[in-house]
């Protein structure tokens, strides 16, 4: 190694050492300094990956030929049990859990443009579940704008549980 390279390397190490010494001294002197060695791991919060696929919204009145459609109800099971679109299937949206794989596979097998998700307006569960299904590979998933209340307000047929209040 030539003397020039050695000199540059040596000086780099000197600069780094100066930085280290000042850093240690400053951290030691300041009241808000941190411990030199931390034994407990840091609690790291990394935001959940965002869903890159968004499903298409659809107005209730734009739904035609509903006999070919499969309605997926994203609302909590209790709400679904109380009242639902007749023939719909319950798949409650859970922000912490993906839908079961076998269910997703069955929905994928239905083919494109057949799934319509209906949710509630509080947490926009319809849009979120529809996005999740799209992300999982279901094609042409749509969700009803305004969710179940919009469906009801449009005077569309619903099914009520007989044991309900």
């Amino acid at each position, binding site marked *: 190694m030539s003397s020039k390279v050695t000199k540059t390397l040596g000086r780099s190490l000197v600069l*780094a050492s100066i930085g280290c010494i000042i850093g240690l001294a400053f*951290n030691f002197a300041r009241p808000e300094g941190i411990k030199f060695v931390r034994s407990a791991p*840091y609690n790291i919060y990394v935001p959940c990956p965002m869903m890159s696929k968004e499903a298409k919204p659809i107005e209730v009145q734009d739904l035609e030929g509903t006999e070919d459609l499969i309605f997926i109800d994203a609302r909590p099971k209790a709400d679904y049990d109380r009242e639902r679109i007749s023939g719909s299937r319950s798949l409650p949206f859970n922000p912490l859990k993906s839908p079961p794989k076998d269910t997703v596979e069955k929905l994928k097998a239905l083919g494109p443009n057949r799934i319509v998700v209906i949710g509630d307006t509080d947490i926009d569960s319809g849009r979120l579940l529809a996005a999740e299904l799209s992300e999982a590979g279901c094609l042409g998933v749509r969700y009803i704008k305004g969710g179940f209340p919009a469906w009801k307000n449009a005077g569309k047929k619903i099914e009520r549980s007989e044991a309900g209040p």
Partner: protein
Amino acid sequence: MIQKLRTLALYLAVPIRIYLGVVFIAACLYKISQPHEFALSIATYGILPTELVNPMAIMLPWIELVCGLTLIFGLWTKASALAISGMMIMFITALLIALSKHLHMSCGCFASAEAGDDINYLTVVRDSLWLAGGMFVLWFDDGRWGMDGLLRRYFQKKASKNAISV
């Protein structure tokens, strides 16, 4: 022709050197003022063992500050450029590891992990350009327009004066 290009590179290396110095000083200020936040940023990458996170958070910003200042003033220019290039290689490696793990996080380069945009390949490109800048300064800047040049001229003058008086 080559001589002309070399002279051009010599001129070009000065603004690049000052720009890199400013970038490094800007990068270190938040890290120095918020060591805990910076330690958290380092820990989020999940590369270093827990025991090494805090020493890194304490010392790295000061190395950045020292190298940034020496680059701006042109003191030990090549050594500062080498240190900064080394740090850039380290940052790029950390970014690539984080991207390969699909981590959604800010790079923690200028602020805390919670602030700023998520890392992506553009962050790697940006850091690579800074690395290229560092290498350019290392290769072409001989320090003549900085403290190195001033000191060199001062000592040469002193030596020639001594030679005359002898």
